């Protein structure tokens, strides 16, 4: 758990982050969104004290982050940035092993961890361990960057626009991978982005920032249904609201008893994907199957429209 308590950062007369308080629940993905200059990156960098707060406190699992030296704090917290930040003079394996080596893990444990992470990120250790970053594609570099951030098994992972430099197809894949990794390690992730689609896709909770303040902090559907102010509403986009709602719920929650014809839809798809499938195949309803392949009911166009409608 990360408790951010009235944190403020001032540079001379300019207040970049203004008395922000929020609690990040363990094992969740929290996304901080905002326009450039909103203070979101500064807020993120105060969590691992790359930026020292002017006032306020941050507690990690109840422990004040100022109670240990900054570099030791940062070794406990994963950190991944846009453009990966890999060390160009070190191989992939050496890059991933950086933090374990700083922590002076025994060599066997470091090697095992590097191999585990490479396999987990679908990079064959035999092929990639001894390559240099410039010999990798953009997507591979980004995966190595996240693998390096996770190497010392941190409970918390901070990510600053980690997918900003990737093309749309690789970015979608990277987002899926991140969610899978997050489930696997049960890491608490705080991610900064200005891409609302990315925020809605990844977040358990979204914090919207503007001019150094957090305007709203809550689960994605709440932001769509009850935007705190016009800025949040604009950021979400009037035209996007129904689709954002559909995007954050799964088919399982809208399945009703009954039967329908045609290709079945898996219950772990999002409602947005279900709607797209119904529209494309020209059906008003489709059968729903569970992950194990059993028929569990059907999903109808009416149910989807009801989910997408403005709350009464």
């Amino acid at each position, binding site marked *: 758990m990360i408790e951010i308590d009235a944190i403020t950062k001032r540079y001379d007369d300019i207040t970049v982050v203004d008395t922000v308080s929020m609690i990040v629940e363990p094992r969740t993905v929290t996304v901080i969104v905002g326009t450039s200059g909103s203070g979101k990156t500064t807020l993120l960098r105060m969590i691992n004290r*790359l930026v020292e707060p002017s006032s306020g406190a941050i507690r990690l699992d109840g422990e004040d982050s100022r109670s240990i030296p900054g570099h030791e704090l940062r070794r406990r917290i994963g950190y991944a*940035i846009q*453009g990966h*930040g890999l060390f160009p003079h070190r191989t992939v394996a050496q890059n991933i092993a950086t933090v374990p080596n*700083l922590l002076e893990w025994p060599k066997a444990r470091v090697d095992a961890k590097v191999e585990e992470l490479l396999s987990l990120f679908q990079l064959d250790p035999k092929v990639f361990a001894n390559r240099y970053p410039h010999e990798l594609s953009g997507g591979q570099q980004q995966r190595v960057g996240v693998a*390096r951030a996770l190497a010392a098994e941190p409970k918390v992972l901070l990510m600053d626009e980690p997918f900003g430099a990737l093309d749309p197809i690789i970015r979608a894949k990277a987002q899926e991978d991140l969610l899978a990794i997050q489930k696997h390690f049960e890491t608490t992730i705080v991610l900064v982005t200005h891409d609302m689609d990315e925020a809605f896709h990844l977040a358990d909770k979204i914090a919207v920032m503007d001019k150094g303040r957090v305007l709203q902090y809550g689960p994605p559907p709440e932001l769509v249904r009850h935007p705190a102010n016009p800025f949040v509403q604009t950021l979400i986009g009037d035209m996007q609201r129904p689709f954002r709602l559909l995007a954050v719920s799964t088919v399982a929650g809208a399945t009703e008893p009954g039967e329908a014809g045609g290709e079945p839809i898996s219950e772990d798809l999002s409602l947005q994907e279900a709607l797209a499938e119904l529209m494309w195949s020209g059906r008003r309803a489709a059968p729903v199957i569970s992950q194990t392949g059993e028929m569990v009911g059907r999903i109808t166009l009416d149910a989807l429209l009801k989910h997408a409608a403005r709350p009464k």
Partner: protein
Amino acid sequence: MSIRIDKLGVVIGLIALYGMFAASFAVLKPNRILQGQAKSMLESLPGASGWGLLLLLLFIILIALIRVPAWSRLVGAVAALAALVFAIGFAAGALTPPGNSYARVSPAAGFWVLVFAFALLAADAITRLQPPPWMRLLFLGVFALLVWGIFASDLWAGLSIMKEYAGRSEVFWSEAGKHVTLAIGSLLSACLVGLPLGIFCHRVPSIRATVLNTLNLIQTIPSIALFGILIGPLAWIATNIPGAAAMGIRGIGTAPAFVALFLYSLLPIVANTVVGLAGVPREANDAARGIGMTDRQRLIQVELPLAMPVILTGIRIVLVQNIGLATIAALIGGGGFGVFVFQGIGQTAMDLVLLGAVPTVALAFASAVILDALIQMSSAVPQRATSA
């Protein structure tokens, strides 16, 4: 397969033809300071040997002119240089009248032009072959061995420069020692001061401009003026600080030369350290801090390895510059190869000037080759497989 003409080969060919036919090959002087009599290649080399050299060189020029694999150009260039080295030694024996110990034979313009032309051919071939750094060091080592072999074999014993050497061999090596000590010693002390100063300038941007401008100013002071400026303070130190005079610190001599070379060395080292550190990718630095490196770990593990090629380039500049500049030290009694240069100028004995100049050039050339190889080997990011 059609024959294609090599452009650089045409230039080399023209230079070599000029050296063979338009310029004289050797000079015969009645004694070491009188004007000499120029001799062409055929005049210098009696009988068939002159024609033999002529034909060999023409054949190698032909190799240079057409596009053939680089290694065959290298073999040709080395063969030409070896032939010239033998020929000039042979010419010295042939031209010197028997029993005359005053007469001197020196290489003339044509010889130097030919050496230049074929050295150019060799350098071009080596560049095209792109040998790995260790291979270049090996080439240098073989070259040095050959030169040593020439000295050991008396091949050049008849040449004037070697006669100058023969009378001064002990002084030559002690001055060589002083020259190297001056050049490398001042470089090492400049590294000891310049590297930390460069790192400090990088970390504290507010002092960067002041430090670099000051060093820049020092760099613009002419060396002779700097020697003069240093006489006062160093003489004061020698008389007023106990032990200083015993360490050899005096207003003239080695101390001011050493200090001047040290001061001239600082700018390239500090400036290249600053530039090298500034060139480290911002993301790599941010990531290094973000994953928990201390400032010292970041400096040693990330910044310095990535900046090393640029820093070494600065050191290379300094070393070559110092080897040349150390010649001036002789003016204020600092010793070094400059001693022969200034003695030679004083006696209008050009061969004595050469005895100081040729080793200086050779030393500078060798250090440039060695440091270039080191720079390439130190490049932290291997250059392989970039096309993948």
